[in-house]
């Protein structure tokens, strides 16, 4: 496809249009003029013939008068009347000479030739032009055209009176080319005199050029009395006029109008037209280019502006335009420029800034990190990257709602910003993950910063009258020792952070030894699916010992994953991921199926153990769960009373109505329901009272410090009291020593779960432990 400029389109289109009109005009004018010229030529010939005949007639009359005057000359008459033949002949010659007659004849009344100046031998013969003589007799003189000896003459016959007619004088004036030329000058036509013989036409006199005379003899046909005739490539409009019948044959005049001459004014007009048309086209072309440029010039300018906008220049000032449409376009372009600039600024902001905290986002942080690395490399300097991940933020979001979670995130951002130097960069990378860039700090020197950050989390977060304890895990990696680019550094910091979280440390510096672990961690989730399918998971049981009678007839089933390659993987490594991806439901199914199967075996073996299984938030929202549980119980002939399902407070918060429905249906099966990790959330006992739960499990956080912390003791005591008042069984988790057991016993706690009695153990080990425990004294 050819792309042509608007200018050339406009100019070409309108110039072509003009040219077309001019050509059409030219053709029409030419055709009309041609026809008119032809008609004119034919008409001129008709008129010309009239004029020609009139001229001949006038010439005849003039000659007649002249000859008459001559014939009345006394001397002449005297000579004629009295003289002898010689005298008469000389008188005739003399008087003929006076009026330049080419031929003079005298004839008697008896029509015999008395004298002849050209051919004396004709004397005595009969006079040939009797008709002329008769006419002259009637009118006293006559003229006519005759041929004598192959020459054409205008003859004039007048009587000689003395005073009666005594004879006739005939004077002949030869019609030659000269006469024809005179006639041509008067009539404005080419004049030819033609004699008709038996053999054809005989050209007697003509104004035509010699070559055309020859051509004329060949081309003239008998019947053509008018029309076109081409002579030697010259076109004539002709008309043949019969002048006389003579004894030697008829005489015709051929009148010819040169079409070239007739057309000359027309051709001149045509030339003028062509010149005018060319001038018009040139003027039009120039004007068109100028006008088109005035249209396209601003367009080109605007196109240039648009192009510069495309290149990111939003600060252009647009020249004012004098054309309305162009001005409109320019205005639109100006607005567009502003709008694009604003939008781009907004997009840039969105692209590089975290809207929640106002901190740089991951993308921006990566840029900053790259720049910082480049600078550090250049100055042979070092830097440290910190990664900070909030603990249990998911639960905060789940239990308190996203608005609260967002406020926590914003507050964390503020605190981080306060905790670092001005030149340090704080960014929020995702969800609950932050990063800090410490330029010019060796990773080994970053501990003080880490410590400072850690201390900011000591202050509890005040949120709408509630206080919230937020903790975080931190990892640090340094340039140049741990990585040469941003990606590597961040990965290292990430590994260090996870290692810290897993090990319960508040922070950890990266160690190259972490690399292998990190890699296994990443593939964990994929492996988990295989683990469920291939039964790589296994259940451990931790006893829940009754404080009233010391019996260990209850246990919490805890899932364990023995990876074929990596060995033992703690639940903290994969359960959160499973919960986030939704795969937890498969895990829960697996756990329920196996726990119920195991419990069913123990019931069948005659020493039934009441098994507790943890449900995740997602499980609580699954309306199919009660039916599945009922089916499993039936399948394994397990009485529902030996099954307890543990739920967390946060699990209830997401969709309380739906969760309550699921809980009611589960409770209706006859099994027990326990609130796990009680005290970490915000649910009041008044709320719990409305739930179909039978058991409260006090979170280990309150239990661990119980012996040393009065506040915790008070919380635990009141929890136990209130639970009992609501008819709930109260269980304490994470009990590690006997003093705590004693305190809890004194407080009236119903059961205890913890290392003080036994770690989670495989089913057979649990059975052995139970037998030993039963045998040992309380």
């Amino acid at each position, binding site marked *: 496809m050819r792309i042509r400029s608007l200018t050339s389109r406009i100019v070409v289109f309108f110039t072509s249009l003009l040219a077309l009109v001019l050509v059409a005009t030219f053709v029409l004018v030419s055709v009309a003029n041609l026809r008119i010229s032809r008609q004119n030529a034919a008409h001129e010939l008709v008129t010309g013939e009239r004029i020609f005949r009139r001229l001949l007639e006038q010439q005849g009359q003039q000659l007649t008068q002249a000859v008459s005057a001559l014939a*009345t000359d*006394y001397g002449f008459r*005297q000579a004629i*009347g*009295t003289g002898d033949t010689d005298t008469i002949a000389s008188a005739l010659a003399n008087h003929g000479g006076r009026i330049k007659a080419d031929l003079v004849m005298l004839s008697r009344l008896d029509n015999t030739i008395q004298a002849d100046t050209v051919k004396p031998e004709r004397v005595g013969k009969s006079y040939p032009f009797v008709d002329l003589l008769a006419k002259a007799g009637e009118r*006293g003189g006559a003229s006519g055209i005759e041929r004598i000896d192959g020459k054409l003459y205008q003859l004039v016959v007048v009587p000689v*009176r*003395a*005073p*009666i007619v005594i004879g006739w004088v005939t004077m002949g004036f030869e019609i030659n080319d000269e006469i024809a030329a005179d006639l041509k000058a008067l009539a404005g036509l080419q004049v030819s005199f033609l004699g008709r013989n038996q053999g054809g036409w005989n050209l007697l006199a003509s104004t035509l050029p010699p070559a055309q005379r020859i051509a004329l003899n060949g081309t003239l046909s008998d019947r053509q009395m008018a029309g076109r005739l081409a002579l030697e490539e010259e076109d004539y409009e002709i008309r043949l006029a019969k002048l006389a019948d003579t004894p030697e044959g008829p005489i015709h005049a051929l009148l010819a109008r040169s079409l070239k001459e007739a057309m000359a004014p027309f051709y001149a007009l045509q030339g003028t037209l062509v010149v005018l048309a060319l001038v018009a086209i040139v003027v039009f072309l120039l004007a068109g280019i100028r006008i088109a440029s005035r249209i396209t010039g601003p367009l080109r300018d605007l196109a240039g502006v648009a192009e510069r906008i495309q290149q990111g220049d939003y600060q252009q000032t647009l020249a004012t335009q004098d054309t309305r449409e162009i001005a409109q376009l320019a205005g639109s372009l100006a607005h567009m420029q502003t709008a694009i600039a604003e939008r781009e600024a907004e997009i840039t902001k969105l692209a590089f800034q975290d809207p929640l905290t106002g901190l740089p986002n991951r993308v921006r942080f990566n840029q900053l990190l790259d720049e910082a690395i480049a600078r550090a490399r250049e100055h042979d300097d070092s830097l440290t990257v910190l990664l900070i991940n909030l603990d249990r933020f998911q639960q905060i979001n789940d239990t308190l709602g996203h608005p609260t979670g967002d406020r926590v995130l914003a507050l964390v951002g503020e605190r981080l910003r306060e905790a670092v130097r001005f030149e340090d960069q704080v960014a929020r990378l995702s969800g609950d993950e932050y990063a800090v860039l410490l330029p010019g700090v060796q990773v080994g020197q970053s501990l003080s910063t880490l410590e400072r950050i850690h201390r900011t989390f000591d202050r509890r977060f005040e949120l709408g009258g509630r206080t919230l304890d937020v903790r975080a895990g931190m990892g640090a990696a340094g340039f140049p020792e741990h990585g040469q680019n941003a990606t590597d550094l961040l990965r290292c910091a990430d590994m260090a952070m996870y290692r810290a979280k897993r090990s319960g440390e508040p922070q950890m510096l990266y160690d190259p030894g972490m690399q292998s672990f990190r890699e296994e961690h990443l593939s964990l989730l994929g492996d988990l699916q295989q683990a469920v399918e291939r039964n790589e998971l296994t259940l451990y049981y931790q006893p829940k010992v009754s404080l009233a009678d010391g019996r260990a007839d209850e246990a919490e089933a805890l899932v364990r994953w023995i990876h074929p390659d990596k060995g033992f993987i703690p639940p903290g490594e994969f359960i959160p991921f499973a919960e986030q991806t939704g795969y937890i439901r498969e895990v829960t199914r697996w756990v329920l199926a196996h726990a119920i199967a195991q419990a069913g075996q123990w019931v069948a073996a005659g020493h039934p153990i009441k098994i507790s299984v943890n449900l995740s938030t997602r499980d609580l929202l699954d309306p199919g769960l009660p039916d599945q549980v009922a089916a499993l119980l039936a399948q394994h002939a397990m009485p529902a009373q030996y099954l307890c399902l543990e739920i967390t407070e946060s699990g209830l918060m997401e969709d309380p109505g739906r969760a309550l429905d699921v809980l009611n249906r589960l409770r209706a099966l006859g099994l027990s329901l326990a609130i796990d990790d009680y005290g970490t959330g915000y649910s009041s006992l008044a709320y719990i009272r409305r739930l179909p739960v039978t058991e409260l499990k006090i979170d280990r956080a309150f239990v661990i410090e119980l012996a040393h912390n009065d506040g915790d003791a008070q919380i635990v005591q009141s929890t136990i009291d209130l639970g009992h008042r609501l008819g709930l069984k109260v269980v304490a988790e994470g009990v590690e020593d006997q003093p705590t057991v004693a305190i809890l016993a004194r407080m009236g706690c119903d059961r205890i779960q913890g290392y003080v009695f036994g770690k989670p153990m495989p089913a057979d080990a649990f059975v052995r432990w139970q037998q030993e425990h039963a045998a040992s004294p309380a």
Partner: protein
Amino acid sequence: MRHARLPRLLVVLSSICALAVPVEVQVLDAAGKPLDEVVVYAEPLSAKAPKGKLSHIIDQVDKEFVPLVNVVQVGTAISFPNKDNIRHNIYSFSAPKPFDLKLYSGTPSSPVVFDKPGQVVLGCNIHDWMVSYLLIVDTPWFDKTDARGMARLGELPAGEYELKVWHPYQASAAPAQKIKLGSGAASAFAFRLKLTPPPASGNHNY
């Protein structure tokens, strides 16, 4: 006519003594209508014609010759009195007597003597239409017909004559009649003549 009467009387007187016979001739056209101004004359065959009156006048009146037709005997002197107040130039190219009276007014001093027989046409060089015809005969016995076509030749002596008629407009000459005059012989004769007047050759009104 009046002038013609005198010689006739003389002839009549002279023939009283020698048995004179009065001759009358009537000229009619083909349709039987009488023709006037036709010259009738008798030429004697047996004797030499005697001399008659040898003078004649042709007037020019109102730019015309008067009379148009004239007949005289050979040897007659004709005078051309000009009665107009303009001048005339009388001429003739006729063979019997070519002459030229240069422009004149009144009566020329000497008349022109016509001494040969024949026809003479007279003209005026400055008035082309003026024409007069003159027949010169070798006999004294001649007359022109009157309105009734009658010409009276007078008393002719007995003898043989050729009787002829002439008119300038005659289509062709009428054959002459041989007559014998004597006592008791017929003296009245008749001619038939066809005249073809020439086309008007001019307009003397300009």
